[in-house]
């Protein structure tokens, strides 16, 4: 299937996601609903990987480029940064440590417990 048809499929899923979000007034963004929908279609086998593989490569291969205009938009709100730069960096750095340590240690602890249980049964 050509990239164009694949893009058509993805845009259709995005549109369905946005429409569902609009109709039910959900807090879940339309693009995330579209992602969940695609995941469900892939897991159930209604869509095959080959139906969306090439457009995925193109889009995710250029993912950071797609962020350029959003980040440039910071020039319109730069005044909010004034006098807060150090505070912002403290929060960024501290919260990264918090997220890494809590998520990583939790996964490690649960995996160890699971493996120990399995060991007992043997």
């Amino acid at each position, binding site marked *: 299937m050509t990239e164009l048809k694949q*893009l058509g499929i*993805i*845009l259709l899923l*995005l549109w369905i*996601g946005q429409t569902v979000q609009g109709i039910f007034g959900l*807090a*879940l*963004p*339309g*693009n*995330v609903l579209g*992602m*969940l929908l*695609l*995941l469900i279609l*892939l*897991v159930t086998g209604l869509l095959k*990987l080959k139906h969306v*593989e090439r457009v*995925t490569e193109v*889009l*995710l291969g250029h*993912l*950071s*480029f*797609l*962020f*350029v*205009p*959003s*980040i*440039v*938009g*910071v*020039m*319109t709100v730069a005044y*909010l940064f004034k006098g*807060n730069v150090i*505070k*912002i960096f*403290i*929060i*960024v750095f501290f*919260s*990264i440590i*918090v*997220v*890494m*340590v*809590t*998520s*990583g*240690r*939790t*996964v*490690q602890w*649960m*995996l*160890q417990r*699971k493996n120990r249980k399995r060991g007992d049964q043997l």
Partner: protein
Amino acid sequence: MIQYLDTPVFGVGVSILAYSIGLMVAKRTKLAIMNPLLVAMVIVISILTILGVDYQTYNKGGAMITFFLGPATVVLAVPLYRQWELLKSNLMPILTGIAVGSIAGVASIIILGRLLDLDTVLIASMVPKSTTTPIAIEISAVIGGNPSLTATFVSITGITGFIAGVRIIDAFGIRNPIAKGIAMGTASHAVGTAKAMEVGEVEGAMSSLSIGVAGIITVFLIPVIMWFL
């Protein structure tokens, strides 16, 4: 002169030029701080400032690029699907870990933001910063943040995770490859995943999986976040 720049071609062209230079600089210097996205941002803002072009004019083209973030988020389901077996066999530890990390991250930002007496718009813009940009800017808009600020915080977070992530993980005794990948991806999305892929195959796979899952979990936290903001 300015009137000839008042076309979508300008915004798209400047973005492509700036990002290409960013990629080149990143490759030449091999410095993590020379992230292509950050370099591109500095170049575009410099060009606009020198030419005296405002953001609205640039964004005629910019909006066309931003449009593709929608379909790009939808196809994040593909890497998630590729790791489906690994995810299924370790479902509970992985989901619990990502959820605990996401909740702790959001809480730490709100608490620290209040302690440091930051503006609510700033705090709301920082809250989704550990998730991937297309999801983060949606969350930001919903909870009263500023999507452009959020996009900036997301990339600062990614780059910090890229530089410091492995050291943090080692320092806090996280040794299991699955746990390492989850920590990198939950804290610093796609940029952290690039680092995790350098560390190892399982780390990279788990990290890319965390991008989508952490995004979804944080979306479900929106009502709770709004309660505390």
